[in-house]
């Protein structure tokens, strides 16, 4: 026990001050809260409207909405900067948006970006920069630069066989950013 206790104390210090808690933080209510504070304080995701993309609306910078408006195979899109491409048996709705990764205190200069659909969607196919999205996170960028805004292309494939029953498209893309 004489040797074990120091080892435990060492491990405990790694958990709190070493990695999981911001240096100088005055909040010491619990480990879990401190870890959350660390996450929010060092790295964050911001979405911005692309000059050639549909306007993002609402929410905090890391939680925005993208309304593509009304789209149809014959008439295309009704709002600016949303494109519709007709293909046999389907059409593809495309727009662009910007995303930046901000890093407060860490030294990483790049991060891996993963994206996933919030809920399964059997009617529509979502693609981000050409990568089909699922509810399982997909690697979108292995080494995204931290700082500058990077433009992304969102494509939604709509089968022409869908009917009025599936006319409302509603989903969310959850991004996860992990510093390299």
């Amino acid at each position, binding site marked *: 026990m004489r040797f074990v206790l120091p080892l435990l104390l060492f491990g405990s210090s790694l958990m709190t001050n070493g990695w*999981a808690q911001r240096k100088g933080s005055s909040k010491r209510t619990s480990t879990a809260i401190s870890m959350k504070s660390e*996450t929010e304080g060092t790295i964050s995701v911001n979405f911005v409207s692309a000059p050639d993309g549909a306007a993002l609306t609402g929410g905090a910078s890391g939680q925005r909405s993208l309304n593509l408006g009304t789209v149809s195979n014959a008439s295309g899109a009704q709002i600016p900067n949303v494109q519709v491409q007709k293909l046999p048996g389907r059409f593809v709705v495309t727009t662009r948006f910007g995303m930046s990764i901000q890093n407060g205190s860490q030294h990483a200069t790049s991060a891996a970006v993963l994206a996933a659909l919030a809920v399964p969607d059997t009617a529509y196919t979502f693609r981000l920069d050409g990568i089909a999205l699922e509810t399982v996170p997909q690697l979108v960028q292995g080494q995204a630069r931290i700082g500058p805004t990077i433009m992304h292309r969102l494509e939604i494939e709509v089968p022409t066989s869908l009917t009025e029953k599936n006319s409302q498209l509603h989903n969310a893309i959850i991004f996860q950013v992990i510093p390299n």
Partner: protein
Amino acid sequence: MRKVVLLTIFAALMMISSAAVAQTTANGTLTVTATVNGSIQLVFNSDAAGVALTGSGTNAATLAFGNVSAFGAVGAGVVRTTTATNFTVSSAVDVQVSKTNSASANYTLTAQLGAADAVNAWTVGGTPVTNASAAGQRNRYQQHH
């Protein structure tokens, strides 16, 4: 005592291990919404037995009968019937209507003359048409006329 020591060491290693893999991440959520409207599309196609259309395959084609008369020659695809008091020229033309994103099974096709014609009588698919109002009939998708 030995078991306690081993368990304690294991617990300590687990703590170090979990601390080592813990890393800061950030999440962002982009909500995406859209409404898909159903649509139908109409194109004119040249019929194999009719006059070749200019602009076939589009929704703004031209059917030119050429010179017509009661007894003279008529162009390819023109069918003529002559009676004692008048003659009729006709041509088959295909109207293709397709639908997307709709459960609708039928559509109504109507026709109307672009300008009044006080001299000639016009029919489309057997239905008389004038410039006054649209006249038509109910059809199923992908039918040809």
